[in-house]
């Protein structure tokens, strides 16, 4: 089970700083990663042997990676494709046109498939998992989904393992974290397609004077009568606080997508500090819960991901700016850099009853997630690539939003697998804060009790 933990460790530097419980020490660039990993590993040994193993192995993984051949995109394996079949593909609405174009290219490259039918339907990453789980047979053969669904999809039998021939390529071509996100137990179940499923801060330059400090931001926004958006009733966004103060929450899974153990320490002083900061933010008259730029009004700050960049640019115009998440200072004077999840979007293939169709689906998924296509997708609809070559391209590097995200990613934990109950429970925790069921002036004991039930619930989701 340690291996899973290993897999989700994206950059050794991040892991090191976080495990040491000190989110505020930034690693400046990727070149430092190796040294940082070593220090991190030694630090972690002192803290927990488990974690230490994880980090060392992660570091090993990083050195192994370039050895594999990352260049050649695995094509269609030899086989009989003379009976044309229909392949259904689900992607988000704004990616439909792009995907259709790419599939046409794919068919051109594989003349055997000229008579095959490929239909692309607009089913967003959020809905895809729910729908495919409702009825696997009616689900798409190839679909994009957000990684938080992967364990659920695996246990519902809605995801096929990545073809053995493609595994090495996927692991070599994409960044560590995305590969970890696509792995359940020890098995690679999906093709990473983006690494930008993390969040950072968009802000209005004319309102926010210092984007690096949460208290200042709140003050600025209150003074200007502008809103601050953050979806604190989400298990995904609230880790920005909890991971910042050094709490951890991960789950171990087996190959079938079952959760075997929870590693959680929210019911600690660190957890209380994080929870306090959340109530403080929620108490601001400027605070609005939410992360959907299209539904946000009158905002100066929004904690959101790259997918909303266009929307926010439209609204903020010249005042548009992005930055990593701010840091916050607790009552005892300690300063924490906000952390959070770095997440990924993946392309999955549904289990197939026909070998030829399965090969086609695998080839298509590999094609749609190849470096060139990822780069083209970035240019077309702005999805940040998980492919390391595409990430290194000039276009991607010069993107404001992606740069902010990259800054933030140093402080985040690559998102692993979490049971769906966790997301519901975290929403409930956030709702309690927003509804002032958990008040800003609650005593430490009360907050600790809240976190204790939260932690117990989280543990109960793993059997």
């Amino acid at each position, binding site marked *: 089970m340690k291996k899973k933990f290993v897999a989700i460790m994206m950059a050794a530097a991040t892991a090191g700083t976080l495990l040491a419980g000190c989110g505020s020490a930034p690693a400046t660039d990727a070149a430092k990663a190796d040294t940082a990993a070593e220090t991190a590993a030694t630090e972690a040994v002192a803290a927990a042997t488990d974690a230490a193993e994880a980090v060392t192995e992660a570091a090993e993984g990083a050195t192994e990676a370039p050895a594999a051949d990352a260049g050649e995109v695995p094509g269609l394996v030899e086989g009989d494709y003379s009976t044309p079949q229909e392949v*259904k593909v*689900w992607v*988000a*609405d*704004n990616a439909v046109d792009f995907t259709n174009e790419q599939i046409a290219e794919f068919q051109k490259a594989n003349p055997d498939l000229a008579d095959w039918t490929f239909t692309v*339907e*607009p*089913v*967003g*990453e*959020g*809905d895809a998992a729910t*729908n495919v789980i*409702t*009825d696997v047979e*009616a*689900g*798409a053969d190839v679909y994009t989904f957000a990684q938080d669904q992967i364990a659920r999809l695996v246990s519902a039998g809605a995801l096929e393992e990545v073809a053995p021939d493609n595994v090495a390529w996927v692991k070599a071509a994409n960044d560590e974290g995305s590969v970890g996100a696509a792995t359940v137990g020890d098995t690679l179940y999906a093709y990473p397609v983006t690494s930008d499923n993390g969040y950072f801060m968009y802000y209005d330059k004319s309102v926010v004077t210092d984007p690096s400090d949460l208290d200042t931001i709140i003050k600025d926004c209150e003074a200007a009568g502008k809103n601050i958006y953050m979806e604190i009733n989400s298990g995904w966004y609230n880790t920005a606080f909890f991971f910042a103060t050094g709490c951890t929450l991960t789950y171990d899974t087996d190959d079938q997508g079952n959760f075997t153990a929870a590693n959680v320490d929210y019911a600690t002083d660190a957890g209380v500090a994080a929870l306090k900061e959340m109530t403080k933010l929620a108490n601001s008259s400027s605070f609005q819960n939410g*992360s*959907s*730029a*299209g*539904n*946000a*009004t*009158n905002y100066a700050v929004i904690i959101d991901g790259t*997918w*909303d960049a*266009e*929307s926010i640019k*439209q*609204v903020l115009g010249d005042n548009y700016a992005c930055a990593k998440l701010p840091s916050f200072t607790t009552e005892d004077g300690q300063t924490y850099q906000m952390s959070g999840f770095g997440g990924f979007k993946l392309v999955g293939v549904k289990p197939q009853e026909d070998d030829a169709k399965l090969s086609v689906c695998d080839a298509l998924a590999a094609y749609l997630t190849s470096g060139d296509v990822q780069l083209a997708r970035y240019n077309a609809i702005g999805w940040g690539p998980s492919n390391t070559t595409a990430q290194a391209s000039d276009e991607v590097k010069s993107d404001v939003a992606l740069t902010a995200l990259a800054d933030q990613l140093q402080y985040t934990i690559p998102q692993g697998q979490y049971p769906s109950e966790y997301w519901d429970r975290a929403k409930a925790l956030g709702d309690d804060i927003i509804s002032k069921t958990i008040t800003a002036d609650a005593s430490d004991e009360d907050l600790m009790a809240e976190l204790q039930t939260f932690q117990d619930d989280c543990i109960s989701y793993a059997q």
Partner: protein
Amino acid sequence: MTKTEKTTEFTSMSARRRTGNIIAYIVLILMSIIWLFPFFGLVLQSFRSYSAEYGGMVDYLMPHRFSLDNYRFLFTGETNFIKWYGNTLTIAFFVALFQTIIVLCVSYALSRMRFKGRTALMRFWLILGMFPGFLTMICLYFLLKQFGLTQAGAVPGLILVSIASSGMGYYVCKGYFDTIPKALDEAARIDGASRAQIMFQMIIPLSKPIIIYTALVAFMAPWCDYVFASYVAFGHDESYNVAVAMTRWVWTNDYQGYFTRFCAGGVLVAIPVTILFMALQKYYVEGVTGGAVKG
């Protein structure tokens, strides 16, 4: 009582009535404002310029610039809006047609004929009605799937499900039939008319209001069917109805800046249904009033 006393009493009464009426008018005007305000807002937002003010939510009522951007978006083929609209219209039309026929059949049988098991059947249906509809959603989905009536076949599937259980909604119509004197039937039977002839030649021509009421209610329901429609049609954009397709624009994060488009679509959905409803309001009132009394 002298004449003068009478007149003063009258004037005081009419004065009281006048003040009463003024208060009543104020209340009515206030209510009208409350009732119409959201629709007013909806229409205004639908005309907000997409290019100048983007399509997201805002906290002001008056668009800074009016335009037809949002309506244009719905019709230029960027979405399947026309298709969704057509689907909803098709479903509404056929459901209204068949549901009316079935309700008439059931009501006639239960109102005019006495047969073994009649009360048992009515009671059984009453009990069935107490189960929440969503309970059986997944089962209905897989049943329809056996007939190929999900996803691509969702439109006929939804029609089938709606009309299949429409027999249980006979109350209002039966109540109406009950008010038609039985003596008419008996006279016709003496003249040698069969049950079928009585139904088609006598009862149905007398039942215009209730037929219109039944059809109207049946026609309006599919326009807000979100729950089951989304469950049956998932993953097949072309067989969505307006409710399923457009709630995505508000609820799903994939659709940023679609709020004004939602408003425009909402206006287009609301207009025909509202006009139809207003035109047939008289029959609707008769139906609900009768239904309320008969239960």
